[in-house]
């Protein structure tokens, strides 16, 4: 008997969920692992009374702004560093030292500077987003083939045309890889920041569920957060596929898809 690949893809997740549900219903699991059906019910409960929407909009507002600021700054400074040696020499040692430090370690300082509300979360999200984006952009700018630029210059293209029509498209794949890592970082740091010290947001919803021993609520928050992160990544990758049409043919990426 031959099982098609598409069916095989679903075997492990479905088996895990089914085992979880069956064991949960038979009360074989500890209280902190409520079965999926209960989690769905809790998800419906918080969605219906608007609590979820409020938490989601707070968290999304923070993560989107933080990501946008961090990625914008990282791309700009990174490209500048790739193009201008003086800027590169200024930022390289700073970044290589700060890169390895978990940015969440700066949270106490951001909390003191910006308080418990939106600002501290946005600032630390942008801060943690900046570094991978900077590195990818810097590397991208340096690796743009000189010949491409020479050819364009030879044909008399003005500098702005070379920048927008040659340089940016050539650097784009790596810019997107940097943005993708930055996006993942944004969600991680936002979640940790909301758990440690925050007013409002999904992290608070989750820790409230935990404190009240409402584990179904905790899981509802966790799953919502997971879905948000996943969806954000998918949106970025869709944009990327449209922006890089023709550039991903014949690469490993196509092999995997």
């Amino acid at each position, binding site marked *: 008997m031959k099982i098609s690949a598409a069916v095989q893809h679903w075997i492990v997740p479905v088996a895990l969920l089914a085992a979880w549900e069956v064991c949960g219903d038979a009360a074989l699991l500890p209280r902190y*692992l409520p079965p999926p059906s209960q989690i769905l019910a809790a998800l419906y409960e918080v969605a219906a009374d608007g609590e979820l929407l409020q938490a989601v909009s707070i968290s999304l507002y923070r993560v989107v702004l933080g990501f946008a600021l961090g990625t914008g700054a990282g791309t700009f400074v990174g490209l500048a560093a790739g193009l201008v040696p003086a800027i590169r020499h200024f930022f390289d040692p700073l970044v*290589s*030292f700060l*890169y390895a430090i978990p940015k969440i370690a700066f949270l106490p300082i951001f909390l*003191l*500077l910006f308080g418990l509300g939106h600002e501290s979360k946005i600032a630390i999200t942008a801060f943690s987003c900046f570094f991978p984006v900077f590195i990818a952009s810097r590397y991208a700018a340096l690796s743009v083939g000189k010949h491409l630029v020479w050819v364009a210059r030879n044909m008399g293209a003005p500098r702005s045309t070379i920048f927008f029509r040659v340089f940016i498209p050539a650097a784009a794949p790596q810019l997107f890889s940097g943005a993708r890592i930055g996006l993942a970082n944004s969600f991680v740091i936002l979640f*940790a920041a909301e758990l440690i010290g925050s007013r409002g947001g999904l992290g608070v919803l989750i820790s409230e569920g935990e404190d009240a021993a409402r584990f179904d609520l905790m899981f509802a928050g*966790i799953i919502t957060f997971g879905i948000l992160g996943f969806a954000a990544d998918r949106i970025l990758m869709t944009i990327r596929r449209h922006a890089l049409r023709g550039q991903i043919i014949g690469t490993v990426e196509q092999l995997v898809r």
Partner: protein
Amino acid sequence: MMAQLVTQILRGIERWYSIPLLLLLWQVAVGSGLVESRLLPSLLQVWAVLVKDTANGVLPYHTAITLGRAATGFALAAIAGVPFAAAMARSIVIRNLFEPIFFFGYPVPKIAFFPVFTYIFGIGSPSKVAFAFLECVYPIVVTAYLGFRAIPQPLIWTAENMGASPATIIRRVVFPAATPGIFTGLRIALPVSIIVIVLTEMISDSKGLGYYIAVSGTRFEYANVYAAILVIGVCGFVLDRALLLVRDKSVYWERDEDALHL
């Protein structure tokens, strides 16, 4: 000879001047009272705390705990992840069963599940090591898997033609060809392990550098926060360099000279 030395020193200054420059600006800003010293303690204060807490063993104690947890999670992820990636690349059934878990699970922010980990594994080390394992295993498996799959088929055909056994092919062809990919994954995962451990220690624990930072922050002892950040930075830097050294030794045929050695 002399001129060479001078150019070398000048290049060194050109490459590294920004760190001392910023430190100097920091010291001047705090020393002159432009910035309140509660928020930004002076460098000398940070240094004093660093020396004091190193001498009385507090920082080394927390550092050892954090690094021990990070190393355990990272090592477990590498030991389990690389062979698993190889299996996924070689067997179609395993690939079909597990590829969605890795490729769909990759962008899910796994930190959200940490509260569940603390219930399953307890508040102390096990939940943190298990969580570091989960966070590290993703980049290791995905990059190693891509590395294994990108091996040019002619290499394997050639070895088969020359009568090499499957075991020899795996040992002498497949693994060496995939090594650069494996190291890329390890290099992504190494800082992840440290980040995740510090992060989870900040969320809930009573030891480790993350705890040290969180407690110092709530006590408004910001010099201690900066001292711990400095320790983490140095550890991360040294570990990354060490991994890079191992990489260049094992992948001696493909040194990445232009790569930013961050």
